[in-house]
């Protein structure tokens, strides 16, 4: 008590000490509304341009104060991960803790410096607000508690994926991507806020939120179970899918999206094949239906349809012309992206539910479509797009001018095609990168050095190939020249191909958006090479249909026309996959499900052929 001036007795004069207050200025509080601090946690603001309607705010709210409301007229684009929903907040429940602001993936939510609202009991509806940028009462009081780097509750960085260095992968086909280990998968899976944008964006609506959650909870078997509900090609998709899910991921708006594809790969790689087969077979109908379905083509579309139909008890036979099943994933995608063993695992599972795959059997020659029509209740065409298009520039029919898809098939089959010491690839899509990088590897193996040039019409930033493919190709010392249009395959006097002549591209599309490239002929280059490879697109080989059927069927812009179920104009004939939709693995899987569902429904009501 040493510092307190205490006296044990009072004094009559003590109260007079109060007189000093007359000399002091009074405490004055202004009558105007008092502005809140810069960090104040007042009423909500929501920037509707940034808000994607993911609902993560709703999930973190500890008072169950947030309701998601769909507002017609707002942009909704599942492919971009944008919903036409916005959060509405019940101020009878909200405690203005600001966790919603800190976790908002797009930083659209903030708390303002407004803090006064009064109403009568009859006006209680005013407690339920739909925050917008203007403030609760239409007047902006300034931003208070907003997203800040210190306090962001979402982890914007993904777990780094290990990859083979360029020096280690230049001359071999070893898989480049290492895959996540358990710890990385757990950490990556924990970043997910379970908004479901990925589900909406996926062509086959894979249950990504569910299998990500299962991985996080250590339930890998459940993850695989969720995966098999929509995708029997998950070893493949877990490596080479075009990951629309990741484009839509809400974390991708400000940071790196969840590595959904790598997590799918992790789950599939984690289980022994026998467990995967057991899980895939769950729900398989025990008694045969007595119906038979023929499927032409053992790619993702054909085999997915086969998987679904076989599980429903139908007898499915798949006819594959090439020696091995798998279609484009095997014969088009190089092994450094998709090892054959993994594709084999997916196909093995499909076989194990009772699908009969007959390889080296060409429909059209070894067996006719008519026979299939006669012997089966339904026939599915899943031919893929096996033929490469030609640029039809002068000398493009020279023997040293090849198609990328042909070379890729030969490379897979181990057939020698005369690896050129130098090559020019025409095209800027994934196939162009695939063949360029395959040729480079073969060249290094056979000659010790790679010389591959890629020329594409598009500017580098607009290449149709995945950015990572272009990046890795450049790392592997492939020369990539953008905005160059192919003019002529140059042949010397002795009839040997010496290279490709190209002009600089000034524009690709005309004012109406039609394909009409314009060149700068003064900027001409000769790319010397022993081989020119065309990778400018693919078409299906529908010769097996025969003239009469081809006449009868309906076509649209060169492709078979099918209805919403995937059925052609012939009631017994269905078509699915790349030949209908254009090249994309996961679309093909979705298509396979589609025709299988359609066929199954149809068969349920029909008499069997036999």
């Amino acid at each position, binding site marked *: 008590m040493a510092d*307190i*001036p205490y006296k044990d007795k*009072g004094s009559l004069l003590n109260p007079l000490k109060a007189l000093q207050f007359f000399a002091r200025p009074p*405490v004055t509080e202004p009558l105007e509304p008092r502005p809140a*601090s810069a960090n104040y*946690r007042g009423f909500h603001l929501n920037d509707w341009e940034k808000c994607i309607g993911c609902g993560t705010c709703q999930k973190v709210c500890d008072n169950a104060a947030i309701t998601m409301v769909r507002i017609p007229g707002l942009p909704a684009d599942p492919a971009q991960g944008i919903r036409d929903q916005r959060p509405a907040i019940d101020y009878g429940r909200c*405690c203005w*803790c600001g966790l919603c602001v800190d976790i908002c993936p797009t930083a659209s939510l903030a708390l303002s410096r407004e803090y006064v609202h009064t109403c009568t009991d009859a006006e209680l509806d005013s407690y339920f607000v739909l925050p917008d940028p203007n403030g609760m009462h239409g007047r902006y009081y300034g931003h208070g508690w907003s997203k800040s780097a*210190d*306090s962001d509750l979402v982890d914007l960085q993904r777990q780094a994926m290990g990859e083979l260095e360029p020096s280690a992968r230049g001359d071999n086909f070893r898989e480049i991507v290492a895959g996540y280990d358990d710890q990385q998968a757990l950490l990556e899976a924990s970043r997910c806020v379970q908004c479901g944008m990925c589900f909406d964006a996926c062509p086959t609506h894979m249950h990504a939120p569910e299998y990500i959650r299962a991985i996080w909870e250590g339930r890998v078997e459940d993850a695989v179970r969720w995966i098999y509900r929509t995708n029997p090609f998950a070893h493949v998709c877990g490596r080479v899918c075009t990951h629309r899910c990741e484009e839509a991921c809400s974390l991708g708006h400000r940071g790196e999206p969840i590595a959904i594809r790598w997590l799918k790969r992790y789950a599939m790689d984690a289980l022994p094949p026998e467990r995967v087969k057991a899980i895939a077979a769950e729900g398989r109908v025990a008694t045969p239906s007595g119906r038979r379905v023929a499927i032409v083509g053992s790619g993702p579309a054909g085999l997915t349809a086969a998987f679904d139909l076989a599980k429903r008890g139908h007898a499915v036979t798949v006819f594959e012309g090439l020696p091995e099943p798998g279609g484009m994933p095997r014969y088009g995608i190089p092994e450094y992206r998709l090892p054959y063993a993994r594709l084999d695992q997916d196909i093995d599972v499909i076989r194990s539910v009772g699908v009969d795959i007959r390889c080296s059997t060409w429909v059209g020659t070894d067996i006719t479509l008519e026979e299939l029509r006669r012997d089966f209740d339904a026939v599915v065409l899943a031919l893929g797009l096996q033929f490469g298009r030609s640029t039809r520039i002068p000398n493009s029919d020279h023997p040293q001018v090849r198609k990328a898809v042909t070379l890729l098939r030969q490379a897979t089959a181990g057939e020698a095609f005369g690896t050129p010491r130098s090559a020019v690839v025409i095209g800027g899509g994934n196939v162009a990168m695939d063949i360029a990088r395959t040729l480079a590897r073969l060249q290094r193996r056979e000659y010790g050095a790679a010389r591959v040039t890629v020329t594409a019409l598009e500017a580098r930033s607009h290449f149709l190939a995945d950015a990572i493919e272009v990046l890795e190709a450049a790392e592997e010392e492939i020369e990539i020249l953008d905005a160059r249009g192919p003019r002529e395959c140059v042949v010397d006097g002795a009839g040997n191909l010496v290279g490709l002549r190209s002009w600089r591209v000034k524009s690709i599309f005309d004012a109406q958006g039609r394909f009409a490239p314009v060149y700068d002929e003064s900027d001409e280059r000769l790319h010397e090479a022993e081989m020119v490879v065309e990778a400018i697109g693919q078409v299906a080989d529908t010769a097996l249909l025969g003239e009469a059927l081809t006449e009868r069927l309906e076509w649209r812009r060169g492709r078979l026309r099918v209805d919403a179920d995937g059925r052609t104009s012939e009631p017994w004939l269905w078509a699915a996959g790349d030949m209908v939709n254009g090249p994309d693995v996961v679309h093909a899987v979705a298509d396979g499900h589609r025709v299988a569902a359609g066929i199954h429904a149809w068969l349920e009501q029909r008499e069997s052929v036999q």
Partner: protein
Amino acid sequence: MRPENYEAVNHPPSNEFELFFGPNHPGIEGNYALKVKLNGDQVVSARADGGYLHRGFEKLMEGRLWIQNIALVPRICVPDPVPMEVCYSLAVEELGGITVPERAQWIRVLQLELSRIAAHLFTFGGHAATTGMYSNMYWGVADRDQILDLFEELSGGRVYHIYNIPGGVRRDIPTGYLERVTRTLDYIESRLPDYDNLFFTNQVFVQRARGIGAMSQEQALEWGVTGPNLRATGLAFDVRRDDPYLVYDQLEFDIPIEQAGDAWARTLVRRQELVQSIRIVRQVVERLPHVGGPIRALIPNPLAWNLPAGEVYTRVESSKGELAYYVVSTGGDKPYRVHVRGPSAMHAVQVLENLTAHARLEDIAQIMFSLDACPPEVDR
């Protein structure tokens, strides 16, 4: 209990009667009740009656994610919410093996001590009011408001700061904040002579408070008393010194004690603690600009965050005494059990009953306020 459920007891004709003291009574700190049996002005016995502020927090916390509970815990002790936030965060951090960055620890001490000052000012005000000295009450609340301004600037909220998060704090201190803190401390220090004149050394108050609600150190220890109430009986136990947490071991401060154990001694202990808290805050203000680094250890996505299984007992010295949290995790994303041990659990019940048992009616309110018995942390 609701007044309509109250049944008066029939006494034989005598001077004895029962008084239901509370629950919305200016002489009761918070919402609480005492069922007092009186013989004239003399208390014969007293029974505490709580539950008016029971919000079921311990059960609520079991149903919420680890991070969601930071919004619940400050509400458990209304006048001094920061120790609740810090104690919960410390428990989660210990369970999760999370190391709080140094800068965050210093900021936490800043908050804790400012909250202590604010809570003591509030208590002085309340205590003064129970002896009819309302000017002091207005002063206490008004001066506390200046500290609430500081909290508003720091955390966006005046009373419930929701500022501590497992791993650290949610925002860094604003620019110029430390100058404003210093100015506020200077102001409060300059007011202490006024408080002394009007209240602490004012004979009107001293005569009222001396000898009231006295307990000996033995009684205090027996009844589980902690905090300023215990220090007023001569035992210098302070969790900051004896079970240190954050950066208190790097700070210089005294633990004031008194000997008499009565209402006046408890008040004086708090008065001196206020000075010590100011001293601590000044040290923090000087040190903080030199402590760089992050204000938060990163935690996983709160929607997908499991803590390892285990149990912890964390303690913090709040303005009322020893505050402790016992948290059990079974490896999930929500607590399995959270037990909040508020210091007033002892003070507001047993101690209050024992001390008022020999008091006079006019002193009951003063005893409760001098104990700084805070019902929200009894009821949770």
